[in-house]
């Protein structure tokens, strides 16, 4: 009985913790961006501007949730929910600390890759259901970008799987006790970072949204809570990406003095800060440059990484 309660507590804790982090990212991203742009972020609302999250939440809740009459209603409503569902389901397999995980699948990594493929649907369906030209353009660009970058996302983590010998995320974390995988799998880490940034439509790969900043984009017709779902879904994607990189390449919860969960959170926040730095520095490539980069540079790099890792593992394995 107490074991069930413990499991429920862990599930609720992970859910609430992850959503709190994603909501807090609204504030953290603006403060970090402003730190790197020589200005102050929100610092008026509450001490150090911390109540800005509350203010933004209240704003999103009270905005008029209008469904355009020319939109495809059921798909329009489902599209933002898909990204939240997909990303939150991916969090079910992430191991936070020894004993703290929601589900222990021995194909945990495949589950994560599958869920991120499902997340593609959110932008495509959102753009399609909005039934407006710029939304459609944004959705189509999103589909091409995410499809192209999905291909080598899976390939880039195969090097990690080869070195560990298992898809189970907990085995991967345990295998990094002596040496984190960012050293032998350096190129795999780079390719995975680029691929996952493109999957969560994060700068510099935010063309489906940049249409949002410039013209429309797949969430132009959305308002109120549905837009809030897209927004928080993107931040959840950033958190998930950082957490997966920590698990796969940066040693999970291993570290000298502090308790493991603290190490996990520290490393995740470090990677989140790095993603925000990338957002604040790099320019957005043109659409064809982006696709060419994905197919002509990243895919060969991922394949080469896989081939070399396979060769090294074969040569050094004990008979």
């Amino acid at each position, binding site marked *: 009985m107490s074991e069930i309660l413990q499991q429920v507590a862990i599930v609720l804790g992970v859910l609430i913790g992850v959503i709190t982090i994603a909501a807090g990212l609204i504030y953290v991203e603006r403060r970090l961006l*402003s*730190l*790197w*742009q*020589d*200005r*102050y972020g929100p610092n008026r609302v509450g001490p150090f501007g911390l109540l800005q999250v509350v203010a933004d939440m209240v704003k999103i809740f009270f905005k008029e949730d209008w469904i355009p009459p020319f939109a495809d209603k059921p798909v329009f409503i489902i599209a933002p929910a898909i990204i939240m569902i997909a990303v939150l389901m991916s969090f079910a397999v992430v191991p936070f600390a020894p004993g703290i995980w929601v589900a222990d699948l021995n194909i945990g990594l495949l589950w994560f890759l599958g869920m991120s493929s499902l997340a593609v649907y959110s932008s495509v369906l959102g753009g399609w259901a909005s039934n407006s030209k710029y939304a459609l353009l944004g959705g189509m660009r999103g589909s091409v970008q995410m499809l192209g970058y999905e291909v080598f996302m899976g390939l880039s983590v195969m090097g990690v799987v080869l070195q560990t010998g298992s898809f189970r995320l907990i085995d991967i974390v345990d295998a990094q006790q002596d040496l984190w995988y960012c050293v032998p799998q350096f190129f795999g880490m780079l390719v995975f970072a680029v691929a996952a940034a493109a999957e969560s439509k994060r700068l510099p790969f935010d063309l489906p949204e940049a249409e949002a900043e410039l013209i429309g984009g797949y969430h132009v017709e959305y308002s109120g809570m549905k837009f809030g779902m897209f927004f928080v879904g993107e931040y959840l994607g950033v958190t998930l990406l950082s957490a997966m990189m920590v698990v796969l390449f940066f040693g999970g919860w291993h570290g000298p003095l502090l308790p493991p969960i603290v190490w996990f959170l520290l490393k995740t926040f470090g990677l989140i800060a790095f993603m925000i*730095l*990338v957002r*604040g*520095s*790099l320019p957005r490539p043109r659409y064809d440059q982006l696709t060419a980069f994905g197919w002509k540079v990243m895919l060969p790099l991922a394949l080469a990484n896989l081939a070399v890792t396979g060769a090294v593992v074969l040569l050094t394995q004990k008979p």
Partner: protein
Amino acid sequence: MREILNSFRTLWLVFLHAFRKRETILYPDVKPRLAPRWRGRIILSRDPDGQERCVACYLCSAACPVACIALQATEGPDGRRYPKFFRINFSRCIFCGLCEEACPTYAIQLTPDFEMGEYVRQNLVYEKEDLLIAGPGKYPGYNFYRRSGLAIAGKDKGQADCERAPEDVWSVMP
């Protein structure tokens, strides 16, 4: 390839910005530093002797590009001209400073003050009582009537600063 490595250099340089001072001035906790010549709120100044400098010559009203100054001249018992009313509509004023350049007596001046927000639009029309200040403003020590040749109470012709006494034209005739 060079672009990829250049991206890493960009990331490093932007990261270094974290250690620089921020450019934002945290108004209203910190007020910005304004020069004394900064064109802000308009005032009407007084002589060093305490009388108002404005002689209601209408030059500022004529120079104003948006016609926001309204005044009417009248003369006092001592012979000094002064404005019966002097009204500036600050919802029209563009703070260009042309009135200050046109004024012959240094009466109208622009000060480095910009905090003039109102909730009721009519309160932005400032009358003479709102514009007049107690001191000489930016140009201390200038008294127009001490310099000009006009005869007023207390100063006859020839008694101004740097003025010679008027010639008696009959005394230079052959």
